[in-house]
């Protein structure tokens, strides 16, 4: 099949997958309230169709794998495309993205003048690649490519619009997001059935003492869900950073709506506000990053920005080049995205450059947005509060959508981050994972434990990305999405059965809810990173191993940053501890609250079937994740796709001022076994401790609590972050607000009051003038006329004969007057 057509097909299926939830959303928005139960069918249809389309796109993608001789069909592809490329007329119409990125290995740009020399080079390259196939790793899929969809505006040579960027990461994310979203949609049908009829919310007490009763919001829930998945898929498919920002905000909006779903509850509406406002803080940095990028590159397109920084995409390895730091200009010389030559300013004939510090600022700005979205260390406080939403929302927010967006963007925008920015990312991730893990130890709310574990796992991903473990970080994003969705849905199932979030009230639920217990058990093992080496691995084991291997290799290359290995290593033990603590407290032991226990029941199939599917994927013991036979983790299809989408390989001569050395993949492989063993020991250790504390009760948790009560308080209050922010931002804001309100009342109001009284005085004067002088004159005239008339009425007697006399007398009078005057 022609590769260009294949690309078009992939784009078609992906765009279809992207727009199906939108169609569902619009349908639900327009007539959803009349759907009732069928709103869920509409939403599930949309997202399920989206999943199918993503799968089709994924299969098409894998068809293009550049493989060695063992795959004859790819050789056929080779020759066919060569034939097509040699016929200029059949090239796709001018689309610069196509020109730049597509298979220059096989094709020649027809309009180039020096065809002969290039042709030879490429021919030889092509033959070389043929002979080198046994050395070069087999590549799954094609090089990343971009397709414009819609143009908003053109400014000179730059333009702003919607476009699609597709590479292995896009494909993997699409399948993951649509799959998990589909399962959560199905689960939500069971979980939200209370909303189908009139709903009584026991947590909202009205002024008359009764709980609030309101109409159910079942269709509305699925309307938001559809918009949520649409936004997330739009974010993943986006071909430029501006488009990412649009959907970034949409995702934020949807999370706001969903977290505040029970908006009558004060806590829920506050949590929704908090999530939205904290994200705004991050988006502020994002906006600054966008401005710098636009100024420096006059484009938002990924391919444009990466190409200008790193030269054209290497069509052989599907990777971008290195950044070349130029001492003279103290920055980078922008490159032509097609030829890799330096861009010249047409007026001054100097090369166009971008300052290194500006690039660092841009990277930090974009990362700032990711910190907000992915709940990293300074801006993580919104995530635990986001538990106020219904549990399926938490499941979606914590696995496939909202928080994944930040990690995804760091991965997608990776070529722009300088080593300094990456170091910041790594440290933020390290701090986050440690902090959140310690808080999770003492949390008693089952969802809160999971929320902090999410923050912690996101810290792992950020750390992995920061130390150059791009594949490891994003692989963990994918595996984490599965088991975190699973854990949340399980906790939802438990909450659904017990009507409480507090683990101290649960216990012994294993017998009552076997399906939930076993699936949650799988999830706990997966997130703890436990495995029986060589026999059965769980998803988290492989991805976390990979991260730790990267961290160890990085620490060995940069001994001053060794802490970036110890943080995740200790974090692994803590993770395992608090997850098993959750499991033991919820499902084992004696029921702590008999009433809750008696009430508990297994959830309906709509809820536990998605759990079972997710548990199956979380075990990861099949080829989809990792080939168990392979010693060095990266052998499964999924990590392979990610590995082939890796945007570039750090060389040891990296640019940058901090002198960081990124570990090569060989170095990572070398320490993989060591890191893996250590991690496994840590995880087992954590699990054993949890068993001693909460399983058999040899150690008494409350004793430990008393002994370390200051630390316990510190952790229970989440490191006092909320208080700190209250003290740092909220209180000063209140103070400033109070000051301004005083100014308002005493200054501005005084001014207004007094100007008002002056106005009243003037009006009064004016009124007096009107009443006395103007009205007085008019009244006087009227009065005079009245008097005269009153006086004259005496003459009108009504006596006819008198009138005749009057006529006679006055006629005579007239005549006499005339005679008198005439004779004068």
């Amino acid at each position, binding site marked *: 099949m022609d590769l260009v057509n294949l690309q078009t097909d992939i784009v078609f299926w992906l765009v279809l997958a992207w727009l199906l939830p939108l169609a569902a959303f619009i349908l639900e928005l327009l007539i959803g309230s009349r759907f009732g139960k069928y709103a869920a069918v509409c939403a599930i249809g949309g997202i399920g169709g989206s999943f199918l389309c993503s799968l089709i796109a994924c299969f098409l993608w894998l068809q293009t794998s550049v493989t060695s001789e063992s795959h004859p069909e790819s050789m056929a592809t080779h020759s066919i495309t060569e034939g097509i490329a040699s016929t200029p007329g059949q090239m796709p119409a001018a689309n610069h993205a196509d020109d730049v990125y597509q298979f220059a290995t096989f094709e020649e740009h027809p309009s180039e003048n020096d065809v002969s020399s290039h042709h030879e080079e490429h021919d030889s390259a092509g033959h070389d690649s043929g002979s080198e196939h046994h050395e070069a790793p087999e590549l799954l899929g094609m090089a990343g490519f971009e397709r414009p969809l819609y143009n908003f505006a053109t400014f000179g040579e730059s333009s702003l619009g919607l476009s699609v960027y597709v590479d292995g990461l896009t494909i993997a994310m699409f399948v993951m997001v649509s799959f998990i979203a589909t399962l959560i949609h199905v689960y939500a049908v069971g979980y939200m059935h209370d909303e189908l009829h009139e709903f009584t919310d026991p947590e909202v007490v009205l002024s008359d003492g009764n709980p609030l009763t309101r109409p159910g919001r079942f269709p509305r829930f699925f309307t938001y869900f559809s918009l949520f998945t649409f936004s997330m898929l739009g974010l993943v498919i986006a071909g430029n950073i501006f488009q990412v920002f649009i959907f970034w905000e949409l995702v934020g909006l949807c999370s706001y709506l969903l977290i505040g779903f029970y908006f009558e509850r004060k806590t829920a509406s506050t949590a929704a506000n908090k999530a939205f406002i904290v994200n705004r803080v991050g988006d502020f940095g994002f906006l600054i990053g966008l401005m710098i990028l636009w100024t420096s590159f006059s484009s938002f397109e990924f391919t444009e920005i990466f190409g200008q920084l790193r030269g054209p995409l290497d069509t052989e390895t599907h990777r971008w080049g290195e950044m070349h730091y130029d001492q003279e200009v103290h920055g980078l010389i922008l490159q032509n995205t097609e030829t890799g030559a330096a861009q010249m300013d047409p007026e001054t004939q100097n090369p166009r450059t971008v300052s290194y510090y500006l690039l660092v600022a841009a990277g930090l700005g974009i990362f700032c947005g990711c910190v907000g979205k992915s709940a990293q260390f300074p801006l993580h406080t919104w995530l635990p509060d986001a538990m106020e939403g219904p549990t399926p929302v938490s499941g979606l927010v914590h696995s496939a959508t909202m928080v994944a967006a930040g990690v995804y963007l760091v991965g997608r925008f990776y070529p722009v981050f300088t080593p300094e920015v990456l170091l910041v990312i790594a440290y933020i991730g390290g701090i986050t994972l440690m902090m959140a893990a310690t808080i999770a130890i003492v949390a008693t709310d089952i969802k809160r434990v999971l929320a902090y574990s999410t923050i912690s796992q996101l810290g792992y991903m950020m750390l992995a990305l920061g130390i150059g473990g791009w594949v490891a970080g994003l692989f963990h994003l994918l595996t984490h999405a599965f088991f975190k969705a699973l854990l949340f849905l399980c906790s939802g199932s438990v909450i659904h059965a017990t009507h409480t979030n507090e683990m101290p009230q649960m216990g012994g639920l294993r017998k009552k809810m076997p399906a939930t217990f076993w699936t949650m058990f799988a999830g706990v093992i997966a997130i703890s990173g436990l495995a029986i080496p060589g026999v059965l691995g769980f998803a988290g084991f492989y991805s976390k191993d990979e991260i730790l291997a990267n961290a160890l290799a990085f620490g060995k290359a940069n001994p001053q940053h060794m802490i970036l290995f110890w943080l995740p290593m200790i974090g692994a033990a803590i993770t395992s501890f608090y997850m098993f603590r959750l499991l033991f407290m919820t499902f084992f032991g004696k029921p702590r609250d008999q009433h809750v226990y008696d009430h508990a029941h297994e959830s309906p199939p709509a809820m536990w079937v998605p759990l079972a599917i997710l548990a199956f994927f979380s075990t990861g013991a099949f080829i989809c994740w990792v080939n168990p036979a392979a010693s060095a983790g990266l052998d499964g299809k999924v990590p392979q796709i990610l590995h082939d989408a890796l945007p570039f390989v750090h060389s040891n001569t990296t640019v940058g001022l901090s002198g960081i050395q990124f570990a090569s993949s060989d170095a990572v492989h070398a320490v993989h076994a060591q890191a893996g063993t250590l991690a496994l020991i840590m995880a087992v250790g954590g699990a054993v401790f949890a068993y001693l504390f909460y399983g058999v009760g040899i150690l008494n948790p409350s004793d430990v609590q008393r002994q370390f009560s200051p630390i316990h308080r510190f952790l229970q209050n989440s490191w006092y972050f909320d208080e700190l922010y209250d003290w740092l931002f909220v209180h000063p804001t209140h103070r400033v607000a109070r000051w301004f309100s005083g100014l308002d009342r005493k200054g501005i109001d005084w001014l207004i009051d007094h100007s008002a009284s002056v106005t009243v005085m003037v009006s009064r004067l004016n009124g007096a003038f009107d009443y006395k002088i103007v009205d007085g004159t008019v009244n006087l005239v009227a009065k005079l006329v009245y008097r005269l008339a009153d006086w*004259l*009425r*005496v*003459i*009108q*007697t*009504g*006596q*006819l*004969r008198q009138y*005749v*006399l009057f006529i*006679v007398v006055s006629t005579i009078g007239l005549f006499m007057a005339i005679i008198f005057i005439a004779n004068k």
Partner: protein
Amino acid sequence: MTPIGLSPYLTVGAVLFVAGVVCMATKRNAVGILMGVELVLNAANLNFVAFNRFGKLGLDGQMFALFVIVLAAAEAAVALAIVLNFYNNHYTIDVDHGEQLHG
């Protein structure tokens, strides 16, 4: 016999006029007042005709006289209708009782 000049006519007209006015001013009977009006009108007619004969008015005087006669007839008809209505309302034709519109 000396021809009669303008003055006797005017004199007779003036006498008639004064008689009519006095009649109007003194009679309380509505019909009497109407009679007074007729006298006044005919005094005017006499003057018109006299001026036609002796003055420069020419035929216009006669024409006017005719008009006044016609007018007088019409006026008498309307006035008698008013009188009848007056009687219907007051059971009298004493005009002194018709004083409801006094000031």
